[in-house]
Protein backbone atom coordinates (compact mmCIF):
# COMPACT_ATOMS: atom_id res chain seq x y z
CA UNK A 1 0.00 0.00 0.00
CA UNK A 2 1.39 3.37 -1.02
CA UNK A 3 0.38 6.96 -0.41
CA UNK A 4 1.52 8.91 -3.44
CA UNK A 5 1.07 12.05 -5.46
CA UNK A 6 0.71 10.89 -9.05
CA UNK A 7 0.92 12.85 -12.24
CA UNK A 8 -2.03 12.73 -14.63
CA UNK A 9 -0.82 11.53 -18.04
CA UNK A 10 -4.19 11.70 -19.76
CA UNK A 11 -7.83 12.00 -18.79
CA UNK A 12 -10.36 11.75 -21.58
CA UNK A 13 -14.06 11.24 -21.94
CA UNK A 14 -14.49 7.82 -23.50
CA UNK A 15 -18.24 7.29 -23.23
CA UNK A 16 -21.19 9.32 -21.99
CA UNK A 17 -20.21 10.57 -18.47
CA UNK A 18 -17.39 8.02 -18.44
CA UNK A 19 -13.70 8.89 -18.35
CA UNK A 20 -10.43 7.03 -18.76
CA UNK A 21 -7.57 8.48 -16.74
CA UNK A 22 -3.94 7.33 -16.85
CA UNK A 23 -1.65 8.16 -13.94
CA UNK A 24 2.08 7.76 -13.49
CA UNK A 25 2.35 5.45 -10.45
CA UNK A 26 5.28 3.03 -10.70
CA UNK A 27 4.93 1.54 -7.20
CA UNK A 28 1.25 0.83 -7.69
CA UNK A 29 1.70 -0.44 -11.24
CA UNK A 30 4.30 -2.97 -10.16
CA UNK A 31 2.36 -4.34 -7.18
CA UNK A 32 -1.36 -4.15 -8.05
CA UNK A 33 -3.47 -7.25 -8.72
CA UNK A 34 -6.66 -7.29 -10.81
CA UNK A 35 -9.69 -6.40 -8.67
CA UNK A 36 -7.79 -4.12 -6.31
CA UNK A 37 -8.67 -0.45 -6.01
CA UNK A 38 -7.25 2.88 -4.91
CA UNK A 39 -8.65 5.78 -2.88
CA UNK A 40 -8.25 9.02 -4.80
CA UNK A 41 -8.45 12.45 -3.23
CA UNK A 42 -10.98 14.36 -5.33
CA UNK A 43 -10.29 18.01 -4.60
CA UNK A 44 -7.61 20.26 -3.18
CA UNK A 45 -9.46 21.97 -0.36
CA UNK A 46 -11.52 20.73 2.59
CA UNK A 47 -14.97 20.83 1.00
CA UNK A 48 -15.09 17.11 0.25
CA UNK A 49 -13.61 15.13 3.09
CA UNK A 50 -13.71 11.60 1.69
CA UNK A 51 -11.58 10.00 -0.99
CA UNK A 52 -13.29 8.09 -3.79
CA UNK A 53 -12.62 4.37 -4.24
CA UNK A 54 -11.92 3.44 -7.89
CA UNK A 55 -10.91 0.08 -9.35
CA UNK A 56 -7.67 -0.24 -11.24
CA UNK A 57 -8.72 -0.63 -14.87
CA UNK A 58 -5.43 -1.31 -16.59
CA UNK A 59 -1.69 -1.31 -16.05
CA UNK A 60 0.93 -0.46 -18.64
CA UNK A 61 4.55 -0.23 -17.52
CA UNK A 62 4.71 2.46 -14.82
CA UNK A 63 1.19 3.67 -15.52
CA UNK A 64 -2.19 2.73 -14.09
CA UNK A 65 -5.60 3.56 -15.53
CA UNK A 66 -8.98 4.24 -13.96
CA UNK A 67 -12.28 3.96 -15.83
CA UNK A 68 -14.85 5.99 -13.92
CA UNK A 69 -18.22 7.61 -14.28
CA UNK A 70 -18.51 11.28 -13.32
CA UNK A 71 -21.69 11.14 -11.26
CA UNK A 72 -21.06 13.35 -8.25
CA UNK A 73 -19.02 16.36 -7.23
CA UNK A 74 -15.92 14.26 -6.48
CA UNK A 75 -15.78 12.34 -9.75
CA UNK A 76 -16.68 15.49 -11.70
CA UNK A 77 -13.65 17.19 -10.13
CA UNK A 78 -11.60 14.20 -11.20
CA UNK A 79 -12.96 14.49 -14.75
CA UNK A 80 -11.64 18.05 -14.89
CA UNK A 81 -8.02 17.09 -14.17
CA UNK A 82 -5.66 17.66 -17.05
CA UNK A 83 -2.34 16.24 -18.13
CA UNK A 84 0.35 17.33 -15.63
CA UNK A 85 -2.05 17.76 -12.67
CA UNK A 86 -1.36 15.77 -9.51
CA UNK A 87 -3.69 13.27 -7.90
CA UNK A 88 -3.19 12.00 -4.36
CA UNK A 89 -3.59 8.21 -4.36
CA UNK A 90 -3.73 5.59 -1.60
CA UNK A 91 -3.35 2.13 -3.03
CA UNK A 92 -3.41 -0.57 -4.13
CA UNK A 93 -6.09 -1.63 -1.65
CA UNK A 94 -8.28 -4.68 -1.08
CA UNK A 95 -7.93 -8.32 -1.98
CA UNK A 96 -8.48 -8.52 -5.74
CA UNK A 97 -9.74 -11.45 -7.80
CA UNK A 98 -8.11 -14.82 -7.36
CA UNK A 99 -7.82 -17.41 -10.10
CA UNK A 100 -7.59 -20.83 -8.54
CA UNK A 101 -4.79 -23.15 -9.61
CA UNK A 102 -6.87 -25.52 -11.72
CA UNK A 103 -8.92 -22.91 -13.59
CA UNK A 104 -8.13 -22.70 -17.29
CA UNK A 105 -11.29 -21.24 -18.79
CA UNK A 106 -12.62 -18.03 -17.27
CA UNK A 107 -15.92 -16.24 -17.81
CA UNK A 108 -15.95 -12.50 -17.06
CA UNK A 109 -19.27 -10.71 -16.72
CA UNK A 110 -19.20 -6.90 -16.97
CA UNK A 111 -22.35 -4.88 -16.33
CA UNK A 112 -21.93 -1.23 -17.42
CA UNK A 113 -19.09 0.51 -15.58
CA UNK A 114 -18.40 -2.90 -14.01
CA UNK A 115 -15.99 -3.38 -16.88
CA UNK A 116 -13.56 -1.23 -14.89
CA UNK A 117 -11.74 -4.01 -12.96
CA UNK A 118 -12.53 -6.78 -15.46
CA UNK A 119 -10.47 -5.46 -18.35
CA UNK A 120 -7.39 -5.64 -16.11
CA UNK A 121 -8.35 -9.18 -15.04
CA UNK A 122 -8.95 -10.25 -18.66
CA UNK A 123 -5.59 -8.96 -19.82
CA UNK A 124 -3.71 -10.36 -16.87
CA UNK A 125 -5.41 -13.78 -17.10
CA UNK A 126 -4.89 -14.01 -20.88
CA UNK A 127 -1.21 -13.20 -20.47
CA UNK A 128 -0.95 -16.09 -18.02
CA UNK A 129 -2.39 -18.48 -20.59
CA UNK A 130 -5.99 -18.63 -19.38
CA UNK A 131 -8.82 -18.78 -21.89
CA UNK A 132 -11.01 -15.74 -21.31
CA UNK A 133 -14.56 -15.04 -22.41
CA UNK A 134 -15.60 -11.47 -21.54
CA UNK A 135 -19.27 -10.50 -21.73
CA UNK A 136 -19.62 -6.71 -21.90
CA UNK A 137 -23.15 -5.55 -21.16
CA UNK A 138 -24.42 -1.99 -21.51
CA UNK A 139 -27.74 -0.25 -21.97
CA UNK A 140 -27.06 0.70 -25.59
CA UNK A 141 -24.38 1.01 -28.23
CA UNK A 142 -23.39 4.53 -27.13
CA UNK A 143 -22.22 3.10 -23.82
CA UNK A 144 -20.22 0.25 -25.40
CA UNK A 145 -16.53 0.47 -24.62
CA UNK A 146 -14.36 1.06 -27.73
CA UNK A 147 -13.51 -2.33 -29.19
CA UNK A 148 -9.89 -1.37 -29.86
CA UNK A 149 -9.37 -0.81 -26.11
CA UNK A 150 -10.84 -4.18 -25.14
CA UNK A 151 -8.42 -7.04 -24.47
CA UNK A 152 -7.07 -8.34 -27.76
CA UNK A 153 -6.68 -11.87 -26.47
CA UNK A 154 -9.71 -13.91 -25.61
CA UNK A 155 -13.28 -13.74 -26.75
CA UNK A 156 -15.31 -10.56 -26.26
CA UNK A 157 -19.10 -10.70 -26.49
CA UNK A 158 -21.02 -7.42 -26.77
CA UNK A 159 -24.45 -7.30 -25.24
CA UNK A 160 -26.86 -4.34 -25.18
CA UNK A 161 -30.19 -4.06 -23.39
CA UNK A 162 -31.82 -2.44 -26.43
CA UNK A 163 -30.12 -4.67 -28.98
CA UNK A 164 -28.45 -1.71 -30.69
CA UNK A 165 -25.16 -3.63 -30.76
CA UNK A 166 -24.26 -7.29 -30.34
CA UNK A 167 -26.62 -9.60 -28.52
CA UNK A 168 -29.80 -8.19 -27.04
CA UNK A 169 -30.49 -8.51 -23.35
CA UNK A 170 -28.66 -8.55 -20.05
CA UNK A 171 -25.31 -10.18 -19.41
CA UNK A 172 -27.04 -12.59 -17.06
CA UNK A 173 -29.35 -13.78 -19.89
CA UNK A 174 -26.36 -15.52 -21.48
CA UNK A 175 -25.06 -17.32 -18.41
CA UNK A 176 -26.46 -20.71 -19.35
CA UNK A 177 -24.81 -20.43 -22.78
CA UNK A 178 -21.29 -19.81 -21.45
CA UNK A 179 -21.15 -21.07 -17.87
CA UNK A 180 -21.04 -24.82 -18.64
CA UNK A 181 -17.83 -24.25 -20.58
CA UNK A 182 -15.82 -22.51 -17.85
CA UNK A 183 -13.96 -23.31 -14.63
CA UNK A 184 -14.47 -19.98 -12.86
CA UNK A 185 -16.55 -16.84 -13.31
CA UNK A 186 -15.92 -13.21 -12.27
CA UNK A 187 -18.52 -10.47 -12.26
CA UNK A 188 -18.65 -6.74 -11.71
CA UNK A 189 -21.81 -4.70 -12.13
CA UNK A 190 -24.84 -3.39 -10.29
CA UNK A 191 -26.33 -5.27 -7.36
CA UNK A 192 -29.31 -6.36 -9.48
CA UNK A 193 -26.90 -8.31 -11.67
CA UNK A 194 -25.56 -10.21 -8.66
CA UNK A 195 -29.04 -10.97 -7.39
CA UNK A 196 -29.94 -12.27 -10.85
CA UNK A 197 -26.81 -14.44 -10.76
CA UNK A 198 -28.03 -15.88 -7.47
CA UNK A 199 -31.43 -16.55 -9.06
CA UNK A 200 -29.93 -18.43 -12.02
CA UNK A 201 -27.20 -19.98 -9.90
CA UNK A 202 -28.54 -23.46 -10.64
CA UNK A 203 -27.88 -23.13 -14.36
CA UNK A 204 -24.21 -22.42 -13.68
CA UNK A 205 -23.61 -25.79 -12.09
CA UNK A 206 -20.88 -25.48 -9.50
CA UNK A 207 -18.80 -22.84 -11.27
CA UNK A 208 -17.36 -20.61 -8.52
CA UNK A 209 -18.28 -16.96 -9.01
CA UNK A 210 -16.38 -14.00 -7.57
CA UNK A 211 -18.05 -10.58 -7.52
CA UNK A 212 -16.65 -7.13 -6.82
CA UNK A 213 -18.81 -4.99 -4.52
CA UNK A 214 -19.17 -1.23 -4.51
CA UNK A 215 -20.29 0.39 -1.28
CA UNK A 216 -19.69 3.70 0.48
CA UNK A 217 -16.29 3.80 2.12
CA UNK A 218 -14.58 6.15 4.55
CA UNK A 219 -10.96 5.14 4.96
CA UNK A 220 -10.35 2.32 2.43
CA UNK A 221 -8.12 0.33 4.79
CA UNK A 222 -10.40 -1.23 7.40
CA UNK A 223 -10.21 1.46 10.07
CA UNK A 224 -13.59 3.19 10.01
CA UNK A 225 -15.94 0.21 9.53
CA UNK A 226 -18.23 2.12 7.16
CA UNK A 227 -18.38 -0.61 4.51
CA UNK A 228 -19.48 -3.61 6.55
CA UNK A 229 -21.46 -6.41 4.87
CA UNK A 230 -22.86 -9.63 6.20
CA UNK A 231 -21.45 -12.88 4.88
CA UNK A 232 -21.81 -16.54 5.77
CA UNK A 233 -18.52 -16.22 7.60
CA UNK A 234 -19.53 -13.16 9.64
CA UNK A 235 -19.17 -9.42 9.19
CA UNK A 236 -16.71 -8.39 6.48
CA UNK A 237 -15.37 -5.02 5.39
CA UNK A 238 -15.53 -4.42 1.66
CA UNK A 239 -12.41 -2.24 1.62
CA UNK A 240 -10.15 -4.71 3.41
CA UNK A 241 -11.70 -8.19 3.14
CA UNK A 242 -13.04 -7.34 -0.36
CA UNK A 243 -13.98 -5.73 -2.64
CA UNK A 244 -14.03 -9.23 -4.18
CA UNK A 245 -16.18 -11.89 -2.50
CA UNK A 246 -17.54 -15.29 -3.44
CA UNK A 247 -21.07 -14.75 -4.71
CA UNK A 248 -22.35 -17.58 -2.52
CA UNK A 249 -20.65 -16.25 0.61
CA UNK A 250 -22.56 -12.96 0.69
CA UNK A 251 -25.72 -12.79 2.79
CA UNK A 252 -27.98 -11.24 0.15
CA UNK A 253 -30.97 -11.08 2.50
CA UNK A 254 -33.72 -8.60 1.73
CA UNK A 255 -31.89 -5.31 2.21
CA UNK A 256 -29.61 -3.90 -0.49
CA UNK A 257 -25.95 -4.83 -0.05
CA UNK A 258 -24.38 -2.25 -2.38
CA UNK A 259 -25.53 1.19 -1.28
CA UNK A 260 -23.63 4.04 -2.80
Amino acid at each position, binding site marked *: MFLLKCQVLSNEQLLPRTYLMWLEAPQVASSVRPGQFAMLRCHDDLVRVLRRPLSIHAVDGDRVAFLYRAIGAGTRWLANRRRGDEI*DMLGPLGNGFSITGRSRRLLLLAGGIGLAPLKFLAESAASQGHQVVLLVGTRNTAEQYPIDLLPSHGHVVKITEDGSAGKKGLVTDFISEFAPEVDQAFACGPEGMYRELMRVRGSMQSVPVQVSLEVRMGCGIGACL*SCTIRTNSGLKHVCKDGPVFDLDDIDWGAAPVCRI
Partner: protein
Amino acid sequence: MDLRVQLAPKNRLGLTLGNPVMVASGTFGYGMEYAGVIDVQRLGAIVCKGTTLKPRPGNAEPRVAETASGMLNAIGLENPGVDALIRDIAPVWAEWRVPVIVNIAGESIDEYREVASRLDGVDGISGIEVNISCPNIEKGSVEFGTSPDLAAEVTEAVRNASSLPLMVKLTPNVTDIGVVAKAVVRAGADALTVCNTLRGMAVDIVRRRPVLGNICGGLSGPAIKPVALYLVYAVSKAVDVPIVGCGGISSATDAIEFIMAGASAVQVGTATFLDPRACLNILVGIEDFMARENILTLSEIVGQARA
Protein backbone atom coordinates in the same frame (compact mmCIF):
# COMPACT_ATOMS: atom_id res chain seq x y z
CA MET B 1 11.55 22.24 22.39
CA ASP B 2 9.21 20.39 24.76
CA LEU B 3 5.96 19.07 23.30
CA ARG B 4 5.18 16.63 26.09
CA VAL B 5 1.72 16.60 27.60
CA GLN B 6 0.55 15.15 30.91
CA LEU B 7 -3.14 14.29 30.59
CA ALA B 8 -3.62 12.74 34.02
CA PRO B 9 -1.53 14.74 36.51
CA LYS B 10 -3.52 13.50 39.50
CA ASN B 11 -3.53 9.83 38.47
CA ARG B 12 -0.96 7.54 40.07
CA LEU B 13 -0.08 6.02 36.67
CA GLY B 14 -0.14 9.33 34.81
CA LEU B 15 -0.68 9.63 31.06
CA THR B 16 2.30 11.28 29.43
CA LEU B 17 2.22 11.89 25.68
CA GLY B 18 5.38 12.66 23.73
CA ASN B 19 3.43 15.27 21.79
CA PRO B 20 -0.12 16.64 21.72
CA VAL B 21 -1.32 15.03 18.47
CA MET B 22 -3.65 12.10 19.05
CA VAL B 23 -5.97 10.29 16.66
CA ALA B 24 -9.67 10.17 17.43
CA SER B 25 -11.66 7.08 18.26
CA GLY B 26 -13.44 5.45 15.33
CA THR B 27 -11.24 7.02 12.68
CA PHE B 28 -8.06 5.03 13.21
CA GLY B 29 -9.24 1.48 13.91
CA TYR B 30 -6.82 -0.14 16.34
CA GLY B 31 -3.72 1.57 14.95
CA MET B 32 -2.48 -1.38 12.88
CA GLU B 33 -4.58 -0.37 9.88
CA TYR B 34 -2.59 2.81 9.32
CA ALA B 35 0.76 1.39 10.41
CA GLY B 36 1.55 0.49 6.78
CA VAL B 37 0.85 4.05 5.62
CA ILE B 38 2.40 6.33 8.26
CA ASP B 39 4.69 5.93 11.26
CA VAL B 40 2.04 5.61 13.96
CA GLN B 41 4.70 5.47 16.69
CA ARG B 42 5.27 9.21 16.21
CA LEU B 43 1.75 10.03 17.38
CA GLY B 44 1.06 11.48 20.82
CA ALA B 45 -1.46 8.71 21.41
CA ILE B 46 -3.92 6.47 19.59
CA VAL B 47 -7.52 6.21 20.74
CA CYS B 48 -9.01 2.98 19.43
CA LYS B 49 -12.49 2.22 18.15
CA GLY B 50 -15.26 2.26 20.76
CA THR B 51 -15.30 -1.00 22.66
CA THR B 52 -18.26 -2.65 24.35
CA LEU B 53 -18.67 -5.68 26.60
CA LYS B 54 -20.05 -7.98 23.89
CA PRO B 55 -19.29 -7.88 20.15
CA ARG B 56 -21.57 -5.50 18.23
CA PRO B 57 -22.42 -5.79 14.51
CA GLY B 58 -23.11 -2.06 14.09
CA ASN B 59 -25.86 -0.29 12.17
CA ALA B 60 -27.50 -0.84 8.79
CA GLU B 61 -25.73 0.55 5.72
CA PRO B 62 -25.08 3.14 4.44
CA ARG B 63 -23.08 4.20 7.46
CA VAL B 64 -21.39 7.30 6.06
CA ALA B 65 -22.49 10.27 3.99
CA GLU B 66 -20.33 13.13 2.84
CA THR B 67 -21.69 16.61 3.53
CA ALA B 68 -20.27 20.08 2.87
CA SER B 69 -16.85 20.16 4.55
CA GLY B 70 -17.82 17.23 6.69
CA MET B 71 -19.34 13.82 6.93
CA LEU B 72 -22.06 12.00 8.79
CA ASN B 73 -21.37 8.62 10.27
CA ALA B 74 -23.58 6.09 11.97
CA ILE B 75 -21.32 3.08 12.36
CA GLY B 76 -23.11 1.96 15.51
CA LEU B 77 -20.06 0.87 17.52
CA GLU B 78 -19.22 -2.20 15.48
CA ASN B 79 -16.49 -3.91 17.50
CA PRO B 80 -15.34 -7.39 18.54
CA GLY B 81 -15.99 -6.84 22.26
CA VAL B 82 -13.59 -6.19 25.11
CA ASP B 83 -12.40 -9.78 25.57
CA ALA B 84 -11.28 -10.11 21.94
CA LEU B 85 -9.58 -6.73 22.23
CA ILE B 86 -7.64 -7.85 25.30
CA ARG B 87 -6.79 -11.25 23.78
CA ASP B 88 -5.93 -10.30 20.18
CA ILE B 89 -5.11 -6.60 20.00
CA ALA B 90 -3.61 -5.40 23.30
CA PRO B 91 -0.57 -7.72 22.98
CA VAL B 92 0.39 -5.87 19.79
CA TRP B 93 0.05 -2.51 21.55
CA ALA B 94 2.23 -3.74 24.39
CA GLU B 95 5.16 -3.76 21.93
CA TRP B 96 4.48 -0.20 20.79
CA ARG B 97 6.06 3.01 21.98
CA VAL B 98 2.93 5.09 21.31
CA PRO B 99 0.39 5.07 24.17
CA VAL B 100 -2.96 3.52 23.28
CA ILE B 101 -6.16 4.65 24.96
CA VAL B 102 -9.19 2.39 24.76
CA ASN B 103 -12.48 4.12 24.05
CA ILE B 104 -15.32 2.34 25.85
CA ALA B 105 -19.09 2.50 25.48
CA GLY B 106 -22.08 0.76 26.93
CA GLU B 107 -25.82 0.59 27.20
CA SER B 108 -25.84 0.52 30.98
CA ILE B 109 -23.68 1.74 33.83
CA ASP B 110 -22.94 -1.89 34.68
CA GLU B 111 -21.62 -2.46 31.16
CA TYR B 112 -19.24 0.52 31.42
CA ARG B 113 -18.08 -0.72 34.82
CA GLU B 114 -17.49 -4.25 33.56
CA VAL B 115 -15.56 -3.16 30.45
CA ALA B 116 -13.38 -0.81 32.52
CA SER B 117 -12.68 -3.46 35.09
CA ARG B 118 -11.56 -5.96 32.43
CA LEU B 119 -9.19 -3.38 30.92
CA ASP B 120 -7.57 -2.62 34.25
CA GLY B 121 -3.98 -3.82 34.39
CA VAL B 122 -3.91 -5.07 30.78
CA ASP B 123 -0.49 -4.64 29.20
CA GLY B 124 -0.46 -2.23 26.26
CA ILE B 125 -3.32 -0.03 27.46
CA SER B 126 -2.38 3.40 28.81
CA GLY B 127 -5.79 4.85 29.53
CA ILE B 128 -9.53 4.74 29.05
CA GLU B 129 -11.66 7.24 27.15
CA VAL B 130 -15.26 6.94 28.23
CA ASN B 131 -17.65 7.52 25.36
CA ILE B 132 -20.82 8.95 26.85
CA SER B 133 -21.58 10.72 23.61
CA CYS B 134 -22.03 8.33 20.70
CA PRO B 135 -25.16 9.47 18.86
CA ASN B 136 -25.50 6.22 16.95
CA ILE B 137 -26.69 3.51 19.25
CA GLU B 138 -30.26 2.99 20.27
CA LYS B 139 -29.85 2.67 23.97
CA GLY B 140 -27.43 4.37 26.28
CA SER B 141 -24.39 6.29 25.22
CA VAL B 142 -25.57 9.74 24.21
CA GLU B 143 -28.24 9.72 26.90
CA PHE B 144 -25.55 9.40 29.57
CA GLY B 145 -23.70 12.35 28.10
CA THR B 146 -26.68 14.70 28.02
CA SER B 147 -27.51 14.31 31.70
CA PRO B 148 -24.95 15.66 34.20
CA ASP B 149 -26.12 13.16 36.84
CA LEU B 150 -25.92 10.09 34.59
CA ALA B 151 -22.62 11.29 33.11
CA ALA B 152 -21.21 11.54 36.62
CA GLU B 153 -22.59 8.12 37.55
CA VAL B 154 -20.91 6.47 34.56
CA THR B 155 -17.66 8.27 35.30
CA GLU B 156 -17.71 7.23 38.93
CA ALA B 157 -18.45 3.61 38.05
CA VAL B 158 -15.52 3.49 35.62
CA ARG B 159 -13.31 5.35 38.11
CA ASN B 160 -13.99 2.74 40.78
CA ALA B 161 -13.50 -0.17 38.36
CA SER B 162 -10.12 0.84 36.99
CA SER B 163 -7.02 2.64 38.11
CA LEU B 164 -6.14 3.62 34.53
CA PRO B 165 -6.05 7.32 33.58
CA LEU B 166 -9.58 8.27 32.65
CA MET B 167 -10.71 10.62 29.92
CA VAL B 168 -14.40 11.34 29.36
CA LYS B 169 -15.54 12.29 25.85
CA LEU B 170 -18.34 14.84 26.00
CA THR B 171 -21.18 15.37 23.57
CA PRO B 172 -21.75 18.79 21.96
CA ASN B 173 -25.48 18.04 21.84
CA VAL B 174 -26.27 19.76 25.15
CA THR B 175 -27.43 23.18 26.26
CA ASP B 176 -24.63 23.79 28.77
CA ILE B 177 -21.53 21.66 28.35
CA GLY B 178 -19.90 23.30 31.38
CA VAL B 179 -22.41 21.67 33.74
CA VAL B 180 -21.69 18.19 32.34
CA ALA B 181 -17.95 18.87 32.42
CA LYS B 182 -18.04 19.87 36.09
CA ALA B 183 -20.11 16.81 36.99
CA VAL B 184 -17.73 14.30 35.37
CA VAL B 185 -14.65 15.99 36.78
CA ARG B 186 -16.16 15.82 40.28
CA ALA B 187 -16.83 12.13 39.61
CA GLY B 188 -13.16 11.46 38.93
CA ALA B 189 -12.33 12.19 35.27
CA ASP B 190 -8.61 12.90 34.77
CA ALA B 191 -9.17 14.66 31.44
CA LEU B 192 -11.98 15.58 29.06
CA THR B 193 -12.23 15.09 25.31
CA VAL B 194 -14.23 17.93 23.79
CA CYS B 195 -16.15 16.95 21.74
CA ASN B 196 -17.87 14.08 19.90
CA THR B 197 -19.93 14.49 16.71
CA LEU B 198 -22.96 16.75 16.30
CA ARG B 199 -26.18 14.93 15.55
CA GLY B 200 -27.34 15.41 11.96
CA MET B 201 -28.93 13.84 8.89
CA ALA B 202 -29.01 13.86 5.10
CA VAL B 203 -31.87 12.97 2.74
CA ASP B 204 -31.60 11.23 -0.62
CA ILE B 205 -34.16 13.17 -2.66
CA VAL B 206 -34.37 10.52 -5.39
CA ARG B 207 -35.12 7.68 -2.98
CA ARG B 208 -36.99 10.13 -0.74
CA ARG B 209 -35.40 8.52 2.30
CA PRO B 210 -32.65 9.38 4.78
CA VAL B 211 -29.24 8.62 3.30
CA LEU B 212 -28.03 6.80 6.41
CA GLY B 213 -29.41 3.40 7.32
CA ASN B 214 -29.64 4.68 10.89
CA ILE B 215 -31.56 7.83 9.72
CA CYS B 216 -29.38 10.19 11.79
CA GLY B 217 -25.66 10.21 12.40
CA GLY B 218 -22.83 12.20 13.82
CA LEU B 219 -21.43 15.16 11.89
CA SER B 220 -17.65 15.55 11.90
CA GLY B 221 -15.01 17.30 9.86
CA PRO B 222 -14.05 20.93 9.19
CA ALA B 223 -17.73 21.95 9.27
CA ILE B 224 -17.87 21.51 13.06
CA LYS B 225 -14.52 23.06 13.95
CA PRO B 226 -15.78 26.45 15.16
CA VAL B 227 -18.41 24.72 17.31
CA ALA B 228 -15.90 22.35 18.92
CA LEU B 229 -13.40 25.17 19.39
CA TYR B 230 -15.90 27.24 21.35
CA LEU B 231 -16.86 24.22 23.47
CA VAL B 232 -13.20 23.69 24.36
CA TYR B 233 -13.02 27.32 25.39
CA ALA B 234 -16.21 27.03 27.46
CA VAL B 235 -15.14 23.78 29.16
CA SER B 236 -11.67 25.10 29.94
CA LYS B 237 -13.29 27.98 31.81
CA ALA B 238 -15.53 25.59 33.74
CA VAL B 239 -13.04 22.95 34.92
CA ASP B 240 -9.42 22.58 35.86
CA VAL B 241 -8.38 19.29 34.22
CA PRO B 242 -6.54 18.80 30.91
CA ILE B 243 -8.77 19.08 27.85
CA VAL B 244 -8.27 17.25 24.59
CA GLY B 245 -9.71 19.24 21.69
CA CYS B 246 -11.48 17.30 18.96
CA GLY B 247 -13.69 18.39 16.08
CA GLY B 248 -12.68 19.13 12.51
CA ILE B 249 -8.97 19.60 13.18
CA SER B 250 -7.27 19.34 9.78
CA SER B 251 -4.18 21.54 10.00
CA ALA B 252 -1.55 22.71 12.47
CA THR B 253 -3.30 26.08 12.57
CA ASP B 254 -6.53 24.35 13.64
CA ALA B 255 -4.65 22.43 16.32
CA ILE B 256 -2.95 25.55 17.68
CA GLU B 257 -6.31 27.34 17.78
CA PHE B 258 -7.65 24.56 20.00
CA ILE B 259 -4.57 24.68 22.21
CA MET B 260 -4.82 28.44 22.60
CA ALA B 261 -8.53 28.06 23.41
CA GLY B 262 -7.61 25.78 26.30
CA ALA B 263 -6.78 22.29 24.99
CA SER B 264 -3.64 20.53 26.21
CA ALA B 265 -3.77 18.05 23.33
CA VAL B 266 -5.82 17.48 20.19
CA GLN B 267 -7.40 14.57 18.35
CA VAL B 268 -7.38 14.32 14.57
CA GLY B 269 -10.26 12.31 13.12
CA THR B 270 -12.02 12.88 9.82
CA ALA B 271 -8.94 14.59 8.37
CA THR B 272 -7.19 11.20 8.40
CA PHE B 273 -9.63 9.80 5.82
CA LEU B 274 -8.84 12.63 3.47
CA ASP B 275 -5.12 12.53 4.14
CA PRO B 276 -3.61 9.78 6.28
CA ARG B 277 -0.57 12.04 6.71
CA ALA B 278 -2.68 14.79 8.34
CA CYS B 279 -1.86 13.91 11.96
CA LEU B 280 1.89 13.83 11.40
CA ASN B 281 1.76 16.97 9.23
CA ILE B 282 -0.04 18.69 12.10
CA LEU B 283 2.69 17.60 14.50
CA VAL B 284 5.40 19.00 12.24
CA GLY B 285 3.38 22.18 11.79
CA ILE B 286 3.10 22.67 15.55
CA GLU B 287 6.88 22.21 15.90
CA ASP B 288 7.47 24.74 13.11
CA PHE B 289 5.13 27.24 14.80
CA MET B 290 6.88 26.83 18.14
CA ALA B 291 10.29 27.30 16.55
CA ARG B 292 9.12 30.37 14.64
CA GLU B 293 7.45 31.92 17.69
CA ASN B 294 10.22 31.02 20.13
CA ILE B 295 7.97 28.81 22.23
CA LEU B 296 10.06 26.41 24.30
CA THR B 297 7.32 24.37 25.93
CA LEU B 298 3.91 23.75 24.46
CA SER B 299 2.18 24.33 27.80
CA GLU B 300 3.12 28.03 27.52
CA ILE B 301 0.40 28.58 24.93
CA VAL B 302 -2.35 26.38 26.39
CA GLY B 303 -5.35 28.63 26.97
CA GLN B 304 -3.54 31.80 25.88
CA ALA B 305 -6.50 32.98 23.83
CA ARG B 306 -8.70 33.07 26.95
CA ALA B 307 -9.32 36.56 28.18
